[in-house]
């Protein structure tokens, strides 16, 4: 699924990869792929992550991982960093999710009573990137669907998600709800439907696998 999500990145894009699974997308991009990776703590042009032994103590990404620059990197303050996001210069962000609704609402920052570390930069990424993709397991650890008719958790942003990449499928959020785009090799369409807690439109055409 991570490799599949990497193909969502078009040449020339400015992309922010959220903490967790999305960060791994970078490992599936060709070495000379023309792309600009952005991180909230004030950098464009992120290169590969580093082990602590080789790390620069002043160079981390927003998740705290030690990273490298690429030729042409730039560093800037936190206000400028979010100016990139809010002013429409971020072409794509890939975020994790607790829940995604069939209208594209995203909940990914708070589970009342259990997990409330603060929203960090997630609200602005979800609300203002030009395209929001979600990268998540199709169900949570207890097997409950994350794709739902409506979100029950506090929202990060409403009607923001365009596409969802899971271990089972690639699903678009359309004006009429979830629509299957691809399914994982070894997973049936029925498996995907069963693991999704909302109607799933299945196109008439053959569904590719990934």
């Amino acid at each position, binding site marked *: 699924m991570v490799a599949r999500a990497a193909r969502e990145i078009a040449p020339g894009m400015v992309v922010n990869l959220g903490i967790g699974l999305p960060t791994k997308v970078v490992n599936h991009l060709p070495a000379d792929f023309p*792309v600009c990776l952005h991180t909230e703590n004030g950098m*464009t042009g992120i290169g590969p992550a580093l082990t602590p032994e080789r790390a620069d103590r002043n160079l981390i990404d927003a998740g705290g991982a030690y990273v490298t*620059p690429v030729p*042409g990197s730039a560093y800037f303050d936190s206000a400028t960093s979010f100016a990139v996001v*809010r*002013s429409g210069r971020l072409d794509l962000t890939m975020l994790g999710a607790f829940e995604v609704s069939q209208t594209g609402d995203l909940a990914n920052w708070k589970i009342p009573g259990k997990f409330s570390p603060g929203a960090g930069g997630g609200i602005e990424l979800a609300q203002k990137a030009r395209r929001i993709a979600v990268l998540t397991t199709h169900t949570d650890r207890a097997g409950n669907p994350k794709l739902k008719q409506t979100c029950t958790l506090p929202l990060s942003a409403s009607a923001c998600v365009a596409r969802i990449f899971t271990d089972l499928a690639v699903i678009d959020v359309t004006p009429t709800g979830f629509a299957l785009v691809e399914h994982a090799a070894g997973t049936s369409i029925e498996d995907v439907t069963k693991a999704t807690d909302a109607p799933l439109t299945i196109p008439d055409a053959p569904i590719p696998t990934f």
Partner: protein
Amino acid sequence: MRLPDKRCAIEAAIARIKDGATVMVGGFGVPGTPMTLIRALVAHGACDLTLIKNDANEPGMGIDHLLQSGQVKRLITTHLGLNSHAIGLMNSGALEVEFNAQGILAERIRAGGAGIGAILSDIGIDTELARGKQVVEMHGTPYLAEPALRADVALIHADTADPFGNLAYVATAQNFNPLMAMAAPLVIAEAERVVPLGALDPNAVHTPGVFVDHVAELTEITEDYAVVRR
């Protein structure tokens, strides 16, 4: 991963400017004014333009060429004191002028670049600059709502650029350039020098290339950029 290359011929970049466009132009006096991009916009001929620029340069210099050619309908600015020609156009009604306090023009442009809707400020609240502005009370204090300014195009002059569009300015040629370079969906930068990717210290970048669409190296530093002998 490598960063995209945004080098472009000036004419091709300027050709994207349409009639009726709103165009931000960097510079405070001569320093930082993108003289070559302005000359190209005169040659291109797009008309009914709204310009946003701190000042109107001086007669026969910088954006005065666009005023002379009649391409400008409206000017959002702070001070025309050095351009009697622009003041004449304003007084005759041939040019619509909106004056802002200088730091408020800067903040409105910055707000546009930062993707916020407006700032609340008390600057000029006792003066005629407050006329017609929305007043917002916060914790009992009245403020003027100063809406964010964005443009269709921003024309920028930098000292040094790299192919990704990272820009560095020198001395007082910085002024409005870094603000305007964030506040338009089409940002065109001329640079006195374009150096290879990696040759600009990432800590010395004033405008991250992520905001810039086209970058062109000047083939000549013309007399337009020279010290003014008044």
